[in-house]
């Protein structure tokens, strides 16, 4: 049994909220750079240049790359041999969000009630996903998620007969329908299998993978590649101004599923594909 204090959790979450919003991952920057070489549309190229310039300004001035600093989505990979001392773990996470969003001059976007409630004023509560894992460590990932891209996400309950073709069609339709709204170039997270809520969570987890790192399963890696090619044929382009770079990557996570079901979830992320982790 190893002890981690709730204060350590608060501090870690507060820093991660700010770092995630100030610094875009090197993996995303690299893919953006590469996309600039591949984009043929002049307005599309101009958009990617502005995005890259924006990333540098945000990091240099320690300001959020996007004003929508999102819902604070927090993943906790909690080792089963960890004991948290000093307070309730989720309270510590929320205190970290409160401090991070206040100290970092990040926007507070959470309403206390989904139907027209008041702003909670500190961006709490976080949406927390906990996974119990082997070991005596706690890995915390903060993934701020903006509304523009989240709103374009979808879950489909397909029939098994729809198969791989049905899944691809659903993903393509979702991206096409989203058009310019989720601030393309986008990152597409896909969850296939499990059940209704498992598919959605898989799609979110898919967004945490280093950008363009293929799935370890060869058939799924192939589907990721195929979908990326098909999406980039749609012509939506950066910001929807027309172009070849609509998506930077497609990541798919799968899970076994019921004989009668084929759930598929598409979680769209924008180029501000933010997530930051630390292990305590």
């Amino acid at each position, binding site marked *: 049994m190893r002890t981690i204090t709730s204060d350590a959790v608060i501090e870690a979450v507060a820093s991660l909220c700010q770092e995630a919003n100030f610094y875009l991952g090197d993996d995303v920057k690299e893919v953006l750079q590469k996309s600039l070489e591949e984009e043929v*549309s002049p307005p599309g190229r101009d958009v990617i240049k*502005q995005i890259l310039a924006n990333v540098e300004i945000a990091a240099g001035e320690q*300001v*959020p*790359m996007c004003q929508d600093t999102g819902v604070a989505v927090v993943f906790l990979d909690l080792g089963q041999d960890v004991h948290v001392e000093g307070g309730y773990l989720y309270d510590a996470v929320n205190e970290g969000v409160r401090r991070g969003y206040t100290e970092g001059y990040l926007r507070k976007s959470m309403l206390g009630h989904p139907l027209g409630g008041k702003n909670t004023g500190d961006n709490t509560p976080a949406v927390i996903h906990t996974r119990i894992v082997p070991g005596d460590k706690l890995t915390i990932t903060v993934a701020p998620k903006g509304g523009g891209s989240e709103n374009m996400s979808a879950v489909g309950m397909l029939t098994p007969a729809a198969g791989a073709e049905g899944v691809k069609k659903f993903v393509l339709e979702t991206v096409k329908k989203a058009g310019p709204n989720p601030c393309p170039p986008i990152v597409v997270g896909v969850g296939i299998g499990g059940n209704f809520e498992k598919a959605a969570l898989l799609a979110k987890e898919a967004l945490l993978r280093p950008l363009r790192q293929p799935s370890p399963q060869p058939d799924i890696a192939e589907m990721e590649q195929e979908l990326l090619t098909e999406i980039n044929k749609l012509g939506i382009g950066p910001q929807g*101004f027309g172009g070849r770079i609509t998506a930077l990557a497609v990541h798919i996570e799968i899970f076994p599923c019921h004989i009668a079901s084929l759930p598929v979830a598409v979680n769209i992320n924008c180029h501000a594909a933010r997530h930051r982790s630390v292990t305590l």
Partner: protein
Amino acid sequence: MADKYVSPPLTDADVEGLVAGDQVYITGVIYAARDSAHKKLVELLNRGEELPVDLRGQIIYYVGPSPAKPGRPIGSAGPTTSGRMDPYTPGLIAETGLKGMIGKGSRSAAVKEAIIKHKAVYLAAVGGAGALIARSIKKAEVVAYPELGPEALQRLEVENLPAIVVNDCHGADLYEGGMRKYALP
């Protein structure tokens, strides 16, 4: 497609000169408003009351900035999704003489019609480039609804704020045209 420089208030002739795909640089005063401020403005219009600002010839920027760091006029300030303002926009254009909107994402058929009928223009700024865009905002002050926090109605002084024309008053749509142009079989 060309670089154009404009300063509100915009006239019909100014708007006619802007075509889909033009890169526009805006200098002068624009107004920041999003969902809740739109709702309040339209409620006033419906009751026949005066608005807190005269929108004739003006441009509204759909933005909910992040808080300003000390010594800065504003925090990050990129566009938000315009579609949420669609129910309010045709009324604002028709009744106040509003000439321009800056946001991101597609507009409804009703908004596009109002843009053509009343000679207005819809522009997009680069979504997610909030830190870059903030550099062209020199001053920000709340003019109404301070209780709305990041959603308050603000008056922004801008210098060469970059945006691109999506829907012009001649009926062209950059999103549709761009997609057609770059789609592959």
